[in-house]
């Protein structure tokens, strides 16, 4: 037990918890969007994330030619490099997510397979992607070049507002606001919500179910790709099984917030990030996972649908 950390490092932990939690939230969206329309967990989402991190490395190192030992960039070059890496990662993840849907879900659905079959085929795709990357990289961790120098805006109450931390907090919030507006206001967003409420009725209203499902996977892929970019920019490394821990964390975040619910994913990720930071700071890192899951079980005991489960019926994706 180390409570002195709280008094001296409270705001620092909050800030880091926000950054970590919001990256979780973005990946959690990949789970929650798909769950909203299909009532299935897309287990391949963790590997979509993994591929996204490698896409960022590929864009930065191979396409834009910044070796691992490159000096940090500045000015316009920095901005367009980061934007290209972000867009590259989002496109790669979105394409992969849609492909996963085509391979692991659509065909099984068209043939009227039991829902659990898709669950297994998604796990199969996930293992395939992970093992392929293991072979390509010989299971070695890969380092990203430090293109974004980690300068700081300054310290407030012990919290260090470092550029990468700030980036990892602001960009997910922007993405969430856009997504929330899209789902609640646009025609396609309405279609997604209609399918999630009742597939049968949506079909009767003339909504193209397959198109909506593909679109959902696409959006989940886009947000997961953004998460992969932020992860690689903040932590500067990846490995073939990076998706495993991230997948578990993001899935936990989605369940914590109320799976199938966009705002639930947002707050679930935040809550998880905070809990991890404070549990490992106060109790020791060895207690982090234990604490997080004890709290998760307690919350589910009292709110079986997650923190925002009540709202699920109204704002279901």
């Amino acid at each position, binding site marked *: 037990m180390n409570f002195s950390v709280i008094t001296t*490092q409270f705001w620092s932990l909050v800030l*880091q918890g926000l950054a*970590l939690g919001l990256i979780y939230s973005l990946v959690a969206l990949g789970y929650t969007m798909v769950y909203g329309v299909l009532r299935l967990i897309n287990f391949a989402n963790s590997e979509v994330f993994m591929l996204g991190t490698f896409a960022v490395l590929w864009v930065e190192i191979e396409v834009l030619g910044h070796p691992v*030992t490159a000096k940090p960039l500045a000015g316009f070059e920095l901005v367009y490099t980061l934007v290209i890496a972000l867009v590259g990662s989002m496109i790669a993840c979105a394409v992969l997510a849609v492909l996963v849907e085509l391979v692991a879900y659509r065909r099984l659905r068209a043939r009227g397979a039991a829902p659990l079959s898709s669950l297994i085929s998604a796990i199969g795709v996930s293992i395939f992607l992970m093992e392929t990357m293991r072979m390509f990289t010989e*299971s*070695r*961790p890969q380092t990203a070049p*430090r293109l974004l120098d980690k300068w700081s805006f300054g310290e407030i109450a012990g919290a260090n507002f470092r550029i990468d931390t700030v980036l990892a907090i602001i960009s997910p919030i922007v993405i969430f606001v856009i997504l929330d507006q899209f789902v609640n206001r646009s025609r396609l967003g309405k279609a997604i919500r209609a399918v999630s409420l009742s597939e049968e009725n949506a079909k009767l209203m003339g909504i193209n179910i397959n198109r909506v499902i593909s679109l959902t996977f696409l959006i989940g892929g886009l947000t997961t790709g953004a998460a992969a970019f932020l992860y690689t920019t903040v932590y500067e490394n990846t490995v073939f099984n*990076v998706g495993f821990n991230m997948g578990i964390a993001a899935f936990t975040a989605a369940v914590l917030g109320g799976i199938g619910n966009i705002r639930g994913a947002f707050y679930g990720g935040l809550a998880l990030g905070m809990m991890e930071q404070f549990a490992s700071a106060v109790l020791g890192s060895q207690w982090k996972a234990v604490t997080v899951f004890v709290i998760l079980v307690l919350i589910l005991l009292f709110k079986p649908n997650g923190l925002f489960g009540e709202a699920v019926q109204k704002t279901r994706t």
Partner: protein
Amino acid sequence: MNKKIVSGLAIAAATTLALGVVVSSPANAAAKKSVTLAFQGPLTGPDAQLGQDQFPGAEWAIALYNAKNPAVKINLIKADSQCDGTVAANIAPGVAANKAVIGVIGTSCSGEARNSFPAYKAAGLTMVAPSASAVSLTDPKAPDRGFPIFHRVVAHDGFQAPALVRYATKGVTSPKIYLVDDQTTYGAGLIKYAIAPAKKIGVAGTDSVPRGTADWTSVASKVKASGANVVIYGGYTAEAAKFFKALRDGGYTGILAAGDGVNTSDFPDLAGKAADGVRLTAADVPFDSLLTAAELASFQKITGVKVPGLYSATAYNAAQVFITCIEQGKLTRPAIQICVKNTTFTGAGGSKIKFNRYGDIIGGADVGGYLVKNGKIVYDAIA
């Protein structure tokens, strides 16, 4: 990868068995012309560099022996257990089932060794490890000890941990030490033996962080809050790189130090700028310092490695132990075991190697201190 090795070994074992049955009498009549040793350690995976640095030492020793055109040639096969106990538990039975294998040069990591023991003990297969240094492996009271098959040509962490504490705090005024381990057999063991000497100096705090953790910022915050000016990490390269980066990015300016698990040639690349000035130890001196110019040229030619990596000297010594026994005509697993237990061997640089009852070298060894300078790990002084 591992499955491939296991199934490959299984097929090899099955073939040997089948052939043995079919052509038993001529096979027995013919003189045995070659034996096989297995090198077991991480050859792929996050900590592959550890094994990749060591393998050339064993490879070179055996190439030199085979070049002398002996009556019995030695084949060297690789068993990749990725510095991971779970992987080791899966591949060790395959190695043990390969009847041609009469000895194991390995393992590199302590967790690998521990989880290989059940298979090798049952098969009576002798191990000589170049770098598995957890104390429990040779502790007669430990439930996971490797007696009687396990031996190592490296000083255990009971020697290395105090030396690491000494080296990490060298020249630091009023040191306050923060100790972090990675929950592995090696990492937790190293820190366990570092805590007692560290307490005499001043401990600011401890933590234990599982491998695979991405976000180290909370640990970095804690280190900062504790006011520590020396951080000692017990673990392996991949995690150390993430941890040290998070510490430096978080504004920590004190000393960073770690044991031989981090002393691999890929560490400076993975940790980038955070690697600068990191203090590392190893119960090993650089192999090239023990070789003549001609020997070094031969090493480079045979292995294709320019600068011998860490623990290539001990891997060479481990191979030398088996070579000496094979030269004495000990070609079966039981004969090798008796020979390894009772013989005094000559290692690199003319050092004498003799094992005690539980597999440790008698007399221990010096622990070297290394520094990261300009992206390279350089030997500094005796720690």
